[in-house]
C-alpha cells in the first residue's frame, strides 16, 4: 500500500497539465499533494515559471483597467432619480 502511495506521489506533472492548474494554484484550491507536485514542476521548468509569471502580470494589468467617466447627461438623470426617490416617502 505504501508503495502505491509512493508511486502516485512521485508521478511528475507535465507542462500541459501545469498550465491547466495555474488558477487553482493561485486560488489556493489545489490539494496539498497537487500543490507540491505543481511546485516541484515549477522548480525545474523555466517555461511554466514564465507562464505563471505572465498570468500574475495579466491579473495585475487587468486591475489597472479604469472604468469610463460619467457623462454630464447621465449625472443629471441620476440626480433626478435620487430626488424622485427622496420625494417617494
Amino acid at each position, binding site marked *: 500500500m505504501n508503495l502505491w502511495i509512493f508511486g502516485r506521489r512521485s508521478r511528475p506533472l*507535465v*507542462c*500541459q*497539465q501545469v*498550465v*491547466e492548474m*495555474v*488558477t*487553482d494554484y493561485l*486560488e489556493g*484550491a489545489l490539494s496539498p499533494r497537487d500543490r507540491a507536485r505543481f511546485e516541484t514542476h515549477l522548480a525545474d521548468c523555466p*517555461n*511554466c515559471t*514564465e*507562464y505563471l*509569471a*505572465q*498570468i500574475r*502580470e*495579466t*491579473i495585475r*494589468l*487587468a*486591475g*489597472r*483597467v*479604469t*472604468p*469610463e*467617466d*460619467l457623462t454630464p447627461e*447621465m*449625472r443629471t*438623470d*441620476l*440626480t433626478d*432619480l*435620487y*430626488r*424622485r*426617490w*427622496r420625494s*417617494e416617502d
Partner: protein
Amino acid sequence: MREAGRAESVTEPRRPASAFSCTLPTMEPDDSDEWLLRGLRSGDEQAFGTLVDRYYGSMIRLALSFVRSRAVAEEVVQDTWLAMLRGLGAFEGRSTLKTWLFSILVNRARTTGAREARSVPIADTGPVVDASRFGPSGTWAEPPEQWIEEAESRVDAEKLRDLLRAAIDALPARQREVVLLRDVEGLTSTEVCEVLAISEANQRVLLHRGRGKLRQALETALGGPISSSSGGGTR
C-alpha cells in the same frame, strides 16, 4: 422604470465573516461607502453623486456583459440605483456596498438580457493554451514568448489599458463577468460567487479560461515573433 420595485433582486449577499469587523461605524466624516450611505439616507445629494461617480463606470461595463446595447445597459444601471435606494432601509452592511450594487445589477441585467433573447453562449471547454504548443509528451514545444518586460517598461500605459479592454470585451460573456468582477473590480472569489450566483468551482473554471485568453492576447500583441530558428529567445 420597469420592475424597479422587485424585492428579490435587492437581497443583500452575505459578506465574508472575516470582513465583519470592518463595518464598525465611525463618527468622522470621510468618503467611505459607509459614510456616504449614511448621507444618502439623510437625503444628501452630494453623497449620492460621489457614489455614482465611484461605481457608474464599473456598473455600465458589467451591464454591457449581459445586454447588447449601450442604451439598455444605461437603463439597467438606472434601475439598479433606484432599487438600491429603495432597498437602503433594509441594507445592514453584511456585504459591501459594491457587492450589493453589483448583485442588484446582475439580477436586473440577466432579466433584461433574457428578454432581449441573446443567443445562448457557446460552450468553451478547450485547453487554456493551444494543444499544438505542446509536444507529444506534454512538454512545451512552443514556450510562452516573453512580454512582461515589454509591458512594464516599453509600452504606454494607455495602450496597455486599451489592449486589455479589447481583450476583455472579446471574452465569452460568462468569463468576462468573472474577470471583470474579480480582476478588474477586485472582488474576492466569495463575493464574485454571490454576485453571479455561481459555485466556487464554476467561478474558478471561468476565471481560468478568461485569464488564459487575456494572457494569450498580451502575448500575441507584445511577445516577440515566433522565430523559426530555435534558440533565439532573447531580445
